[in-house]
């Protein structure tokens, strides 16, 4: 009897989750009257504005990932190695983007950087910087979890005593053991940047977020097709993280324990 109820709730949850998805999918296939077709997808993918917006956002995502990796990984590593008492402070700081709405952030940025000598609003660098702030909680958390799973200090010291300098320690010992954590942070950052609307629109960049917003207001079938595509992209990324994480160099519970 208990089993029945558990399954019922799972089924209800699944219906709640999958029904809209199914409806969207079905709707996205109905552009041609009277038959199911991929016409909406074709329209979206062949629209030059879409391609431009997607490429732009993807570029921004790549820069954001590079900058935030360079910023977050060494910082988190150093905090773990030498300043563990600062961990709570770091946690608080990296949580701030959750508390401060993106719209507040972007108004602050515009106010601060829209007139000389700090005229940055025409440069995509400002957009990347804003995205780094948005992505920071995800990036920091991923890296932090990865660092917690290995004994950073002892591994560093073991490598040092064997003659290794900092580049060797970082690239041969620390990074390989953070592989799945870094990939996780990277995918999450990509997902955030690729669909971001508020900041891109406020700074007037032709990114994918604003493109989708306009499309949603003016078209019927294409937005549904876009929604399905972004869903597949996101879930594909998550699946990829899982797969890569299971492989060599990923985090494994039996590897973390040390003694067994």
């Amino acid at each position, binding site marked *: 009897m208990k089993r029945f109820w558990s399954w019922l709730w799972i089924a209800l949850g699944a219906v709640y989750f999958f029904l809209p998805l199914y409806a969207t999918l079905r709707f996205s296939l109905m552009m041609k009257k009277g038959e199911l077709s991929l016409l909406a997808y074709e329209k979206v993918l062949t629209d030059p504005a879409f391609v431009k917006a997607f490429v732009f956002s993807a570029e921004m995502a790549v820069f954001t990932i590079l900058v935030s990796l360079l910023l977050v990984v060494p910082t988190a590593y150093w905090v773990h190695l030498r300043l563990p008492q600062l961990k709570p402070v770091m946690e608080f700081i990296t949580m701030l983007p959750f508390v401060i709405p993106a719209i507040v952030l972007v108004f602050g940025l515009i106010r601060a950087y829209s007139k000389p000598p700090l005229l940055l609003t025409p440069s995509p660098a400002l957009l990347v910087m804003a995205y780094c702030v948005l992505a920071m909680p995800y990036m920091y958390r991923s890296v932090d979890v990865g660092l917690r799973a290995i*004994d950073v200090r002892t591994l560093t*010291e073991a490598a040092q*005593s064997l*003659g290794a300098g900092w580049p060797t320690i970082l690239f041969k010992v620390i990074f390989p053991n953070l592989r799945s954590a870094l990939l996780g942070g990277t995918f999450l950052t990509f997902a955030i940047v690729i669909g971001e609307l508020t900041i891109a629109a406020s700074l007037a960049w032709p990114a994918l977020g604003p493109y989708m917003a306009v499309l949603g207001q003016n078209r019927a079938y294409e937005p549904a097709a876009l929604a399905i595509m972004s869903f597949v992209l996101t879930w594909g990324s998550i699946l990829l993280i899982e797969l890569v994480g299971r492989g060599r160099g990923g985090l494994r519970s039996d590897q973390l324990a*040390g*003694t067994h």
Partner: protein
Amino acid sequence: MGFLELNHITKRFANFTAVENFNLEVEKGEFVSFLGPSGCGKTTTLRMIAGFETPTSGKIIINGEDVTYRAPNQRKIGMVFQSYALFPNMTVADNIGFGLKVARKPTAEIKERVKEMLLLIHMEEFADRYPYQISGGQQQRVALARAIAIRPTLLLLDEPLSALDAKIRVELRNEIRAIQQKLGITTIYVTHDQEEALSLSDRVVVMNKARMEQVGAPFEIYNFPQTPFVASFVGTLSILNAEVVNPAQGLLKVDGQEFYGPGGLEARPGDILRIALRPEIVSLKETAADMNRMNVQVQTITFLGSVVRVQVKLETSRMFFDLFNNPSLQLPREGENLTIYFPKSACLVLGK
């Protein structure tokens, strides 16, 4: 002049002194243990030798060179950690070869050396396993091989066996000693396990509260402790509060029974001194001439395996001693009155 010299090393963290005036010379090929309770500064001292900490004052000299401020990766010191610290992303062979690869040795030479090391630790067939695929004891052997592979000037081990279970611990410690002697590596071994320190070392440094208490061969440390701390920390002691009768002769009294401690006591008649006896020194027969004797009543008998511990009482004072177990041992009965014997030289004076 020793191979490793620690000259008046002091280490302070903010206003807390972790190591104070540590002074030691270690000969080439010697095996020295740092023994002491938790927090006494053993690890800190070891980390200064390895270069992970810098002394607040004092000098560290290895083979005639002052290395006090040299970076840890320039010291060529092999280090073994309690948590093994194998690189999880590398196989056993890659772990062992890591130091050689860092030193840019030719691939063929690395391969040869790794093979030699695997043979030394009897793990040839595990070369391609990852650390998480081998047991704790095996991981620690690999860590040892990794440290030795670079032909270090010094080998440092920080409680390498603490995370292992009792049987492996004894096995591995014998293996460590055998390898150390075979290769003649100068070794510093940190432990809070006195049995480990006494059984492995050429010399033991007993530490307490940031200071060295005594340095000596295990035999000296155990039989001739120079401070009350060493006496009570190394081995087990039975303690009596005795009244001084004649300090010059060393005559003492407890519950009306007189006995002799070491002569020339620094005390006045009537003072109460804490006198300690090793439980194994007491016997039920007078095995030598001129022994102290005491009449006691048996209280409880505890079976501890290789020894039987007998708790006895004088009038109000209590003490205990050990009898070596064997199948024909005649155990005293509880409540029985006994005469026990111990040599006059066996009394350790712990102070007032």
